[in-house]
Protein backbone atom coordinates (compact mmCIF):
# COMPACT_ATOMS: atom_id res chain seq x y z
CA UNK A 1 0.00 0.00 0.00
CA UNK A 2 0.99 3.65 -0.43
CA UNK A 3 1.46 5.47 2.87
CA UNK A 4 2.14 9.16 3.36
CA UNK A 5 3.85 10.29 6.55
CA UNK A 6 4.92 13.72 7.81
CA UNK A 7 8.60 13.59 8.76
CA UNK A 8 11.41 15.75 10.10
CA UNK A 9 14.03 14.65 7.57
CA UNK A 10 14.47 12.36 4.57
CA UNK A 11 14.27 8.61 5.02
CA UNK A 12 15.92 6.34 6.26
CA UNK A 13 16.66 8.01 9.60
CA UNK A 14 13.59 10.24 9.63
CA UNK A 15 11.33 10.68 12.62
CA UNK A 16 7.64 11.33 12.24
CA UNK A 17 6.87 15.06 12.46
CA UNK A 18 3.85 15.68 14.68
CA UNK A 19 3.01 18.86 12.79
CA UNK A 20 1.13 18.28 9.55
CA UNK A 21 0.84 21.64 7.78
CA UNK A 22 4.25 22.81 8.93
CA UNK A 23 6.11 19.49 8.81
CA UNK A 24 9.60 19.48 7.36
CA UNK A 25 9.06 16.72 4.81
CA UNK A 26 6.32 14.59 3.33
CA UNK A 27 7.34 11.02 2.65
CA UNK A 28 5.41 8.71 0.36
CA UNK A 29 6.29 5.07 0.99
CA UNK A 30 5.31 1.95 -0.92
CA UNK A 31 5.08 -0.57 1.93
CA UNK A 32 5.57 -3.52 -0.47
CA UNK A 33 8.86 -2.33 -1.94
CA UNK A 34 9.74 0.18 0.86
CA UNK A 35 10.54 2.62 -1.89
CA UNK A 36 10.38 6.21 -0.62
CA UNK A 37 9.68 9.49 -2.33
CA UNK A 38 10.42 12.50 -0.18
CA UNK A 39 9.34 16.09 -0.68
CA UNK A 40 10.51 19.05 1.41
CA UNK A 41 7.47 20.99 2.59
CA UNK A 42 7.35 24.17 0.53
CA UNK A 43 4.64 25.60 2.79
CA UNK A 44 6.20 25.15 6.20
CA UNK A 45 6.97 28.86 6.56
CA UNK A 46 3.81 30.16 4.88
CA UNK A 47 2.23 33.07 6.71
CA UNK A 48 -1.15 31.33 6.60
CA UNK A 49 -2.89 28.33 5.12
CA UNK A 50 0.03 25.89 5.22
CA UNK A 51 -2.32 23.04 6.05
CA UNK A 52 -4.63 23.73 3.13
CA UNK A 53 -1.81 23.37 0.63
CA UNK A 54 -0.08 20.38 2.23
CA UNK A 55 -3.41 18.53 2.46
CA UNK A 56 -4.08 19.23 -1.19
CA UNK A 57 -0.60 17.92 -2.11
CA UNK A 58 -1.22 14.72 -0.16
CA UNK A 59 -4.68 14.19 -1.65
CA UNK A 60 -3.47 14.78 -5.20
CA UNK A 61 -1.05 11.82 -4.79
CA UNK A 62 -3.88 9.65 -3.50
CA UNK A 63 -2.15 7.56 -0.79
CA UNK A 64 -4.03 4.75 0.94
CA UNK A 65 -3.28 6.20 4.35
CA UNK A 66 -1.70 9.23 6.06
CA UNK A 67 0.24 9.05 9.31
CA UNK A 68 0.76 12.29 11.18
CA UNK A 69 0.34 14.05 14.52
CA UNK A 70 -1.83 17.15 14.69
CA UNK A 71 -3.95 18.23 11.74
CA UNK A 72 -5.35 21.79 11.81
CA UNK A 73 -9.03 22.51 11.08
CA UNK A 74 -8.62 23.55 7.44
CA UNK A 75 -6.44 20.57 6.53
CA UNK A 76 -8.84 18.32 8.47
CA UNK A 77 -11.78 19.51 6.37
CA UNK A 78 -9.92 18.70 3.16
CA UNK A 79 -8.64 15.31 4.35
CA UNK A 80 -12.06 14.33 5.66
CA UNK A 81 -13.66 15.02 2.29
CA UNK A 82 -10.96 12.99 0.53
CA UNK A 83 -11.80 9.95 2.67
CA UNK A 84 -8.12 9.07 3.03
CA UNK A 85 -7.78 7.52 6.50
CA UNK A 86 -5.53 9.54 8.80
CA UNK A 87 -3.66 7.75 11.58
CA UNK A 88 -2.09 9.17 14.74
CA UNK A 89 1.43 8.28 15.79
CA UNK A 90 4.00 9.57 18.27
CA UNK A 91 7.29 11.06 17.06
CA UNK A 92 8.83 7.62 16.51
CA UNK A 93 10.98 6.71 13.52
CA UNK A 94 9.21 6.42 10.19
CA UNK A 95 10.07 2.71 10.06
CA UNK A 96 8.41 2.15 13.43
CA UNK A 97 5.33 4.13 12.46
CA UNK A 98 4.90 2.17 9.22
CA UNK A 99 5.40 -1.09 11.07
CA UNK A 100 2.79 -0.02 13.67
CA UNK A 101 0.33 0.84 10.90
CA UNK A 102 0.77 -2.48 9.13
CA UNK A 103 0.23 -4.28 12.42
CA UNK A 104 -2.94 -2.36 13.34
CA UNK A 105 -1.31 -0.62 16.29
CA UNK A 106 -2.18 2.92 15.15
CA UNK A 107 -5.40 4.71 16.00
CA UNK A 108 -7.35 6.37 13.21
CA UNK A 109 -8.03 10.10 13.68
CA UNK A 110 -11.65 11.23 13.79
CA UNK A 111 -11.32 14.47 11.78
Amino acid at each position, binding site marked *: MQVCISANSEYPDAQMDAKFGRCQYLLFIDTDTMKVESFPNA*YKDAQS*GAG*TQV*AQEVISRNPDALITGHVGPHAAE*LLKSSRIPVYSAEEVTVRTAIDDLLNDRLKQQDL
Partner: protein
Amino acid sequence: MVIAVASGKGGTGKTTISTSLALVTPQVQFIDADVEEPNAHIFLQPDHLIQQSAALKIPSIDLSVCTRCGLCQEICEFNALAVLPESEKGPGNVFLFETLCHGCGACYHLCPENAITERAKEIGIVESGVFQNLQDENCEFIHGVLNLNESLTTPVIKDVKEQIDSQKTVIIDAPPGTSCPMIEAVEDSDFCILVTEPTPFGLHDLDLAVEVIRQMDIPHGVIVNRSQDRHNIITDYCGKRNIPILLQIPYSKRIAEGYSKGIPLVKIDPHYIKQFQEVLVAIQNQPPKDISSALNESLLYADPHFFDENAQ
Protein backbone atom coordinates in the same frame (compact mmCIF):
# COMPACT_ATOMS: atom_id res chain seq x y z
CA MET B 1 -5.44 68.67 6.44
CA VAL B 2 -5.32 65.14 7.82
CA ILE B 3 -3.73 64.68 11.25
CA ALA B 4 -3.24 61.14 12.56
CA VAL B 5 -2.72 60.37 16.23
CA ALA B 6 -0.73 57.18 16.73
CA SER B 7 1.63 55.56 19.21
CA GLY B 8 3.82 52.52 19.44
CA LYS B 9 2.74 51.31 22.84
CA GLY B 10 -0.96 51.02 23.50
CA GLY B 11 -2.63 52.93 26.29
CA THR B 12 -0.40 55.99 26.03
CA GLY B 13 -3.24 58.44 25.41
CA LYS B 14 -4.09 58.57 21.69
CA THR B 15 -7.81 58.90 22.33
CA THR B 16 -7.23 61.41 25.14
CA ILE B 17 -5.20 63.55 22.74
CA SER B 18 -7.22 63.05 19.54
CA THR B 19 -10.60 63.79 21.12
CA SER B 20 -9.38 66.95 22.88
CA LEU B 21 -7.62 68.14 19.74
CA ALA B 22 -10.82 67.58 17.76
CA LEU B 23 -12.91 69.49 20.29
CA VAL B 24 -10.82 72.64 19.84
CA THR B 25 -10.59 72.37 16.04
CA PRO B 26 -13.07 74.29 13.91
CA GLN B 27 -14.52 72.52 10.86
CA VAL B 28 -13.23 69.21 12.17
CA GLN B 29 -14.03 65.68 11.06
CA PHE B 30 -13.17 62.95 13.57
CA ILE B 31 -12.25 59.45 12.42
CA ASP B 32 -11.81 56.66 14.97
CA ALA B 33 -9.80 54.11 12.99
CA ASP B 34 -9.21 51.70 15.86
CA VAL B 35 -11.83 49.31 14.52
CA GLU B 36 -10.95 46.49 16.92
CA GLU B 37 -11.76 48.59 19.97
CA PRO B 38 -13.17 51.99 19.06
CA ASN B 39 -13.59 54.16 22.15
CA ALA B 40 -13.61 57.77 20.99
CA HIS B 41 -17.40 57.77 20.84
CA ILE B 42 -17.43 57.52 24.65
CA PHE B 43 -15.77 60.95 24.84
CA LEU B 44 -17.31 62.72 21.85
CA GLN B 45 -20.79 61.21 22.28
CA PRO B 46 -21.93 61.42 18.67
CA ASP B 47 -25.57 60.94 17.86
CA HIS B 48 -27.73 60.42 14.75
CA LEU B 49 -25.63 57.38 13.99
CA ILE B 50 -26.06 55.76 10.59
CA GLN B 51 -24.65 52.29 9.98
CA GLN B 52 -23.19 50.86 6.81
CA SER B 53 -21.91 47.39 6.23
CA ALA B 54 -18.15 46.95 5.74
CA ALA B 55 -17.68 43.95 3.53
CA LEU B 56 -14.85 41.93 2.08
CA LYS B 57 -15.26 40.66 -1.48
CA ILE B 58 -14.61 36.94 -1.39
CA PRO B 59 -14.79 34.43 -4.27
CA SER B 60 -17.73 32.24 -5.05
CA ILE B 61 -16.85 29.36 -7.39
CA ASP B 62 -19.31 27.83 -9.84
CA LEU B 63 -18.28 24.18 -9.75
CA SER B 64 -20.23 23.37 -12.91
CA VAL B 65 -18.05 25.79 -14.90
CA CYS B 66 -14.80 25.15 -13.01
CA THR B 67 -12.38 22.77 -14.77
CA ARG B 68 -10.27 22.15 -11.62
CA CYS B 69 -7.27 23.67 -13.41
CA GLY B 70 -5.92 24.86 -10.02
CA LEU B 71 -4.84 28.31 -11.23
CA CYS B 72 -6.79 30.09 -8.47
CA GLN B 73 -5.04 27.98 -5.83
CA GLU B 74 -1.66 28.68 -7.41
CA ILE B 75 -2.23 32.42 -7.46
CA CYS B 76 -3.66 32.77 -3.97
CA GLU B 77 -1.04 34.48 -1.80
CA PHE B 78 -2.83 33.45 1.37
CA ASN B 79 -3.35 29.75 0.59
CA ALA B 80 -7.09 30.21 1.01
CA LEU B 81 -8.00 27.95 -1.91
CA ALA B 82 -7.51 24.23 -2.42
CA VAL B 83 -8.52 22.46 -5.63
CA LEU B 84 -9.07 18.72 -5.57
CA PRO B 85 -8.81 17.41 -9.12
CA GLU B 86 -11.32 15.15 -10.79
CA SER B 87 -10.40 11.48 -10.28
CA GLU B 88 -11.90 8.02 -10.18
CA LYS B 89 -12.96 8.92 -6.63
CA GLY B 90 -15.19 11.74 -7.80
CA PRO B 91 -15.63 15.07 -9.62
CA GLY B 92 -13.16 16.88 -7.37
CA ASN B 93 -13.94 20.09 -5.52
CA VAL B 94 -12.75 23.61 -4.78
CA PHE B 95 -12.44 24.64 -1.15
CA LEU B 96 -12.38 28.28 -0.06
CA PHE B 97 -11.18 28.91 3.49
CA GLU B 98 -12.96 32.20 4.22
CA THR B 99 -10.94 33.13 7.27
CA LEU B 100 -7.73 33.08 5.20
CA CYS B 101 -9.09 35.15 2.29
CA HIS B 102 -7.94 38.78 2.13
CA GLY B 103 -10.36 39.71 -0.65
CA CYS B 104 -7.56 40.65 -3.07
CA GLY B 105 -9.56 39.49 -6.12
CA ALA B 106 -6.65 37.76 -7.88
CA CYS B 107 -8.53 34.46 -8.32
CA TYR B 108 -11.58 36.27 -9.59
CA HIS B 109 -9.57 38.15 -12.19
CA LEU B 110 -7.43 35.22 -13.33
CA CYS B 111 -9.85 32.28 -13.62
CA PRO B 112 -9.62 31.24 -17.28
CA GLU B 113 -13.17 29.88 -17.26
CA ASN B 114 -14.75 32.91 -15.49
CA ALA B 115 -16.06 30.44 -12.96
CA ILE B 116 -15.54 32.87 -10.06
CA THR B 117 -17.86 35.65 -8.97
CA GLU B 118 -17.41 37.94 -6.01
CA ARG B 119 -19.72 37.95 -3.05
CA ALA B 120 -19.81 40.32 -0.11
CA LYS B 121 -18.85 38.94 3.28
CA GLU B 122 -19.68 41.41 6.02
CA ILE B 123 -16.74 41.76 8.41
CA GLY B 124 -17.76 44.91 10.25
CA ILE B 125 -19.70 48.13 10.18
CA VAL B 126 -18.94 51.79 9.63
CA GLU B 127 -20.96 54.22 11.72
CA SER B 128 -21.19 57.93 11.11
CA GLY B 129 -22.80 60.55 13.27
CA VAL B 130 -22.60 64.08 14.60
CA PHE B 131 -20.88 65.53 17.68
CA GLN B 132 -20.43 69.09 18.97
CA ASN B 133 -16.99 70.64 19.26
CA LEU B 134 -16.27 73.42 21.75
CA GLN B 135 -17.28 76.01 19.14
CA ASP B 136 -20.73 74.34 19.19
CA GLU B 137 -20.38 73.35 15.55
CA ASN B 138 -21.99 70.16 14.33
CA CYS B 139 -19.04 67.98 13.34
CA GLU B 140 -18.88 64.65 11.62
CA PHE B 141 -17.84 61.58 13.58
CA ILE B 142 -16.99 58.28 11.89
CA HIS B 143 -15.80 55.03 13.32
CA GLY B 144 -15.51 51.42 12.26
CA VAL B 145 -16.32 48.36 14.30
CA LEU B 146 -14.84 45.01 13.32
CA ASN B 147 -17.19 42.06 13.88
CA LEU B 148 -16.35 39.58 16.64
CA ASN B 149 -14.31 36.63 15.35
CA GLU B 150 -12.94 38.58 12.39
CA SER B 151 -9.24 39.34 12.28
CA LEU B 152 -8.84 41.39 9.10
CA THR B 153 -8.94 44.98 10.32
CA THR B 154 -7.47 46.83 7.35
CA PRO B 155 -10.48 46.57 4.98
CA VAL B 156 -12.73 48.11 7.64
CA ILE B 157 -10.20 50.88 8.27
CA LYS B 158 -10.11 51.50 4.50
CA ASP B 159 -13.89 51.80 4.43
CA VAL B 160 -13.83 54.23 7.37
CA LYS B 161 -11.19 56.39 5.68
CA GLU B 162 -13.23 56.50 2.49
CA GLN B 163 -15.49 58.90 4.39
CA ILE B 164 -12.71 61.45 4.81
CA ASP B 165 -13.79 64.93 3.81
CA SER B 166 -10.64 66.64 2.59
CA GLN B 167 -12.27 70.05 2.92
CA LYS B 168 -12.20 69.67 6.67
CA THR B 169 -9.45 69.31 9.24
CA VAL B 170 -9.50 65.56 9.75
CA ILE B 171 -8.28 63.95 12.96
CA ILE B 172 -7.68 60.21 12.88
CA ASP B 173 -7.44 58.24 16.12
CA ALA B 174 -5.22 55.35 14.99
CA PRO B 175 -5.00 51.84 16.44
CA PRO B 176 -2.03 51.13 18.72
CA GLY B 177 1.11 49.42 17.51
CA THR B 178 3.16 49.63 14.37
CA SER B 179 1.77 46.90 12.13
CA CYS B 180 -0.80 46.77 9.34
CA PRO B 181 -3.77 48.41 11.11
CA MET B 182 -1.70 51.40 12.28
CA ILE B 183 -0.09 51.79 8.88
CA GLU B 184 -3.46 51.67 7.12
CA ALA B 185 -4.80 54.32 9.50
CA VAL B 186 -1.93 56.80 9.20
CA GLU B 187 -1.20 56.34 5.50
CA ASP B 188 -1.57 59.53 3.46
CA SER B 189 -1.83 61.76 6.54
CA ASP B 190 -0.29 65.21 6.40
CA PHE B 191 1.01 64.97 9.96
CA CYS B 192 1.25 62.30 12.63
CA ILE B 193 1.22 62.98 16.36
CA LEU B 194 2.96 60.19 18.25
CA VAL B 195 1.72 59.89 21.80
CA THR B 196 3.92 58.26 24.40
CA GLU B 197 4.62 58.05 28.11
CA PRO B 198 8.03 58.56 29.76
CA THR B 199 8.62 54.88 30.62
CA PRO B 200 11.06 52.34 29.12
CA PHE B 201 8.23 50.63 27.20
CA GLY B 202 6.90 53.99 26.07
CA LEU B 203 10.32 54.94 24.71
CA HIS B 204 10.99 51.56 23.11
CA ASP B 205 7.71 51.51 21.25
CA LEU B 206 7.92 55.20 20.35
CA ASP B 207 11.17 54.39 18.58
CA LEU B 208 9.42 51.65 16.58
CA ALA B 209 6.65 54.05 15.62
CA VAL B 210 9.13 56.74 14.61
CA GLU B 211 10.89 54.26 12.32
CA VAL B 212 7.60 53.43 10.61
CA ILE B 213 6.52 57.06 10.26
CA ARG B 214 9.90 58.02 8.83
CA GLN B 215 9.67 55.20 6.27
CA MET B 216 6.25 56.55 5.32
CA ASP B 217 7.70 60.07 5.03
CA ILE B 218 5.05 61.64 7.26
CA PRO B 219 5.98 64.77 9.24
CA HIS B 220 5.58 64.06 12.92
CA GLY B 221 5.82 65.34 16.45
CA VAL B 222 5.51 63.82 19.91
CA ILE B 223 3.14 64.41 22.80
CA VAL B 224 4.31 63.08 26.16
CA ASN B 225 1.45 61.95 28.37
CA ARG B 226 1.69 61.31 32.11
CA SER B 227 4.92 63.27 32.33
CA GLN B 228 6.57 63.75 35.71
CA ASP B 229 9.74 65.65 34.83
CA ARG B 230 10.25 68.33 32.24
CA HIS B 231 13.34 66.53 31.00
CA ASN B 232 12.85 62.80 30.67
CA ILE B 233 13.86 59.85 28.52
CA ILE B 234 11.41 60.93 25.84
CA THR B 235 12.65 64.51 25.64
CA ASP B 236 16.21 63.14 25.45
CA TYR B 237 15.29 60.81 22.62
CA CYS B 238 13.41 63.49 20.69
CA GLY B 239 16.21 66.00 21.19
CA LYS B 240 18.76 63.58 19.70
CA ARG B 241 16.55 62.87 16.70
CA ASN B 242 15.28 66.40 16.19
CA ILE B 243 11.64 65.38 16.72
CA PRO B 244 9.50 68.24 18.06
CA ILE B 245 7.70 67.80 21.36
CA LEU B 246 4.31 69.40 20.84
CA LEU B 247 3.00 69.06 24.40
CA GLN B 248 3.70 67.39 27.71
CA ILE B 249 0.74 66.47 29.90
CA PRO B 250 1.66 66.01 33.55
CA TYR B 251 0.64 62.83 35.33
CA SER B 252 -2.54 63.68 37.20
CA LYS B 253 -4.93 61.53 39.18
CA ARG B 254 -7.65 64.06 38.44
CA ILE B 255 -7.18 63.60 34.71
CA ALA B 256 -7.23 59.80 35.10
CA GLU B 257 -10.43 59.95 37.14
CA GLY B 258 -12.08 62.23 34.59
CA TYR B 259 -10.97 59.93 31.78
CA SER B 260 -12.47 56.93 33.56
CA LYS B 261 -15.80 58.77 33.50
CA GLY B 262 -15.55 59.42 29.76
CA ILE B 263 -14.80 63.13 30.08
CA PRO B 264 -12.47 64.61 27.45
CA LEU B 265 -9.30 66.25 28.81
CA VAL B 266 -10.27 69.78 27.68
CA LYS B 267 -13.48 69.45 29.71
CA ILE B 268 -11.75 68.02 32.81
CA ASP B 269 -9.35 70.95 32.75
CA PRO B 270 -10.15 73.87 30.44
CA HIS B 271 -6.55 75.12 30.75
CA TYR B 272 -5.79 72.53 28.10
CA ILE B 273 -8.01 74.24 25.54
CA LYS B 274 -5.31 76.80 24.85
CA GLN B 275 -2.58 74.13 24.82
CA PHE B 276 -4.38 72.05 22.21
CA GLN B 277 -5.16 75.12 20.12
CA GLU B 278 -1.44 75.90 20.10
CA VAL B 279 -0.65 72.32 19.09
CA LEU B 280 -3.08 72.65 16.18
CA VAL B 281 -1.53 75.94 15.07
CA ALA B 282 1.98 74.48 15.29
CA ILE B 283 0.97 71.52 13.12
CA GLN B 284 -0.85 73.67 10.58
CA ASN B 285 2.14 75.97 10.33
CA GLN B 286 4.74 73.31 9.67
CA PRO B 287 7.33 72.54 8.11
CA PRO B 288 8.59 70.55 11.10
CA LYS B 289 12.01 72.15 11.01
CA ASP B 290 10.39 75.31 12.32
CA ILE B 291 8.39 73.44 14.95
CA SER B 292 11.60 71.81 16.06
CA SER B 293 13.43 75.01 16.80
CA ALA B 294 10.45 76.86 18.21
CA LEU B 295 8.86 74.21 20.37
CA ASN B 296 11.76 72.12 21.58
CA GLU B 297 12.84 75.20 23.41
CA SER B 298 9.50 76.04 24.94
CA LEU B 299 8.14 72.53 25.76
CA LEU B 300 4.53 73.46 26.22
CA TYR B 301 2.68 72.21 29.24
CA ALA B 302 -0.53 73.26 30.94
CA ASP B 303 0.74 74.53 34.24
CA PRO B 304 4.04 76.46 34.01
CA HIS B 305 4.81 75.77 37.66
CA PHE B 306 3.91 72.09 37.57
CA PHE B 307 7.40 70.76 37.34
CA ASP B 308 8.56 73.05 40.12
CA GLU B 309 5.96 71.86 42.60
CA ASN B 310 5.88 68.25 41.35
CA ALA B 311 2.19 68.21 42.19
CA GLN B 312 -0.11 65.28 41.33
